[in-house]
């Protein structure tokens, strides 16, 4: 096969995009988030702008921009972050160790992965916002700083 290229990668250094479709996508911490269904390129047709993945058979489609991709190979795609959308449903724990609810929604800055605040829900405390500045750590559960005052438990003041 003959090659014609200038200031770009050679044929051997490139990937056949067909082999990327269906590949498993992993987050930075190794969580398998779904499989690639589409690769999206920009109108100038020079760069990959992102990937569209499907989370499970009945799961939603999620688009990840190219800046969030760490590795893209036919063996797997690795993101360079933990998608904030994965936090949904996780427990929220105060600095004192009390579980005050679980995450119902993640409010982000535009379409980025940067969290603005978390919408937390609990049966007795209702639905309330937790700003990102009040979060100590994000993991299997969300630990809050000692400066955060959780809403009081109430049976009659739920929102």
């Amino acid at each position, binding site marked *: 096969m003959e090659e014609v290229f200038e200031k770009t990668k050679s044929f051997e250094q490139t990937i056949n995009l067909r082999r990327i479709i269906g590949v*498993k996508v*992993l*987050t*930075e*911490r*190794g*969580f*398998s988030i779904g499989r690639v269904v589409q690769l999206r390129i920009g109108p100038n047709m020079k760069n990959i702008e992102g990937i569209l993945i499907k989370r499970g058979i009945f799961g939603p489609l999620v688009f990840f921009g190219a800046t969030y991709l760490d*590795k893209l*190979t036919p*063996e*797997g*795609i*690795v993101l360079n972050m933990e998608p904030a959308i994965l936090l949904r449903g996780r*427990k929220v*724990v*105060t*600095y*004192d*160790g*009390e579980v005050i609810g679980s995450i119902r929604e993640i409010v982000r800055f535009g379409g980025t992965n940067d969290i603005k605040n978390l919408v937390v829900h609990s049966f007795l405390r209702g639905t309330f916002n937790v700003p990102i500045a009040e979060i100590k*750590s*994000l*993991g*299997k*559960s*969300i*630990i809050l700083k000692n400066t955060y005052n959780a809403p009081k438990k109430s049976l009659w003041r739920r929102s």
Partner: protein
Amino acid sequence: MPLKRVFGEGLNNTVTSDDVLGKEVIDSEGEFLGVVEMLHLDPNLVEVAGITIDKGFLKSGLVIGKDYIERIAPHAIFLKIRPFFKLKGMIVFDSVGEKIGVVSKAVLQENKNQIESLLVNVSSLGREVLIPADLIKSIGENVFLITEKDNLKFN
């Protein structure tokens, strides 16, 4: 009836064993590990040496030394570490995200929470590979290596 108190100093900011037993234990990743079942005391120093965590029905307990305890909060005990018994069952991926296998055993340095190596089950036929700690890039939900699958030596 009020308690009679006889103590030297520093007893005002302490908690009792009743406050600790039965409390939830949360690791550094925010995962709930279980509840405190026992308190271990050093008989010579007369101080707490560690705790035993009850991980649940039919699960073996876990002893955590006091050096790994971050703080005792009113509702839970926070650890500084993520205990490496959690590694068992994790999937091991190489540097490009290709699956290598599942962790069947984590070999620790003495009784510390530091990994020496991971024994990874590569296939259902019993093929295994021993991965030294220096090949591990990160441990989170699963394990990432710094090398590719082709560079590993399988048994």
